[in-house]
């Protein structure tokens, strides 16, 4: 089982990112479980989302406390909380922008890519590309197909383009 924890801010779409990846895994015939940590907070408030993917049915339903992968959509979250808490020994960080952390790190400039492609700083789709590149947890084509379950038309086209660009540009720090 691979366990991923997403950290972002309300409005950045990190919950959707976790759902798209779960959907992609399910489309590949795997089992997945994606759920957000909920609160009445709205735009801008820190949010977490959890994702588990396995070849076997998943029964446990607890927050992901020892993730294999931590995804951070906004570096400012390192100031207010500790996204790396509980990260497994050989776990990895996937982060928006080059952030120096004492763990194996992959990064992509999601904000500037999103601004360029979408015209707004919604980073979730770029982070999907980054996670796929960094972890290989699902195939890029499946991630794009799963994205199609959440967006359609022009918005889908732009976001799919963004996923692909982010996938290409994600690098190990």
């Amino acid at each position: 089982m691979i366990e991923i924890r997403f950290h972002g801010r309300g409005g950045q779409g990190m919950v959707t990112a976790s759902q798209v990846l779960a959907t992609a895994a399910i489309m590949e015939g795997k089992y997945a479980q994606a759920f957000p940590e909920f609160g009445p907070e709205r735009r801008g408030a820190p949010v977490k989302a959890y994702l588990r993917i396995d070849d076997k049915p998943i029964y446990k339903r607890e927050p992901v406390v020892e993730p294999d992968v931590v995804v951070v959509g906004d570096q400012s979250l390192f100031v207010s909380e500790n996204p790396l808490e509980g990260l497994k020994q050989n776990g990895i960080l996937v982060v928006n922008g080059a952030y120096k952390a004492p763990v194996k790190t992959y990064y992509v400039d999601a904000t500037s890519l999103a601004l360029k492609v979408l015209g707004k700083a919604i980073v979730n789709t770029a982070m999907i590309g980054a996670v796929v590149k960094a972890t290989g947890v699902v195939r890029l084509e499946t991630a794009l197909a799963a994205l199609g379950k959440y967006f359609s038309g022009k918005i889908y086209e732009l976001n799919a383009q963004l996923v692909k660009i982010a996938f290409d540009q994600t690098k190990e720090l």
Partner: protein
Amino acid sequence: MTAAAALQKAKTTLALTSNYAVAYAVKAADVDVVAVYPITPQTTIVEKIAEFVDDGELNADLIHVESEHSAMSAVVGAAAAGARVFTATSSQGLELMHEVLHIASGLRLPIVMAVPARALSAPISIHGDYSDVMNTRDTGWITYIASSAQEVYDTVIQAYKVAETALLPVMVSYDGFLMSHTTEPVELNDEEEVRRFLPRKDRPNVLRPEKPITMGAFAMPDWYYEIKYQVQEALMGSLKVVEEVDAEYGKIFGRSYGIVQTYRMEDADYAIIAYGGAAFGNAREAADIAREKGIKAGAIRLRVWRPFPTSHLLKQLAGVKAFAVVDRAIAFGSSGGGPVFLDVAAALWMNGIDIPGLSVIHGIGQRSMYVEDFVKIYEMLKSGERNKVIYMGLRL
């Protein structure tokens, strides 16, 4: 292509939350009237059904009622007119419906309702626990508690058959947020096949000008008791219906669940009895860990809460040295522990069985429940903790 192969081909697996799974089941069941009022965490059910209706995929009338009381009242009216109906709510909404819940069972109307369970005010909480569902205990509703989005989908479809056979309302509940908003794989049935599974049947208690009946009469002491006893008898008898419908569903669609679900109970010394996705899912993970530590641990899930599955449960408890019930609700001021614990204790006592137990209250207002907590419960049982109430995860 054989029929079975065609059916297999028609099956699709989607990534759905339990709430969306409900909406897909309602669509498959060809429901006529849906009356709903939005409340967290139920809202996405309503949104999805509204999409189906507005896209013409579900030929139903969606009544945007002005309260949950009216939601339940409208489906009572529609069911009384003979329609297949659906509603959904959570928490305060279920409390507001409470009066009409009794009327729905008293009139013997086959209403199906989904309840992503949520804590009750005050203080207000939007998060999950089972306080709302447990408060409906004595309303005469058949009550399921499902543990996965797949089971939610299958159970809503089964619920229509159960309701229309037993002539009782059915509630399908599951963890608010921990399931209602969790994306999981759900295999969908062929809708034509679902409709064959749920044929339209005539009922005696419908409002038809050709055969005018009076529903909701005023009963004096000479009559009231017998009519209410009928509900009790029907509810007790409905366990058999639940079992038969589940078996038939399994034969056709390949998935069934039983009345109680067990995990490693064959030789278990210590059992955790739980309900819902998070509590049972974590209990079964914990049983594996406990067994690695040399504790013969097992887990039991109540899939059906009302009618209480006494004999199914007692069969599983035979040979167990001690058990714990994990309740995600507080029975305020009770004689001993959480609401389900009280029923388990009564079931044991009524059958002259003396097995010691722990009442564990956990996950209140969605306080995080960890697998580790359930391992601790097994350890407590092994170390001889008995006959007390444990408020787990509480800063006491």
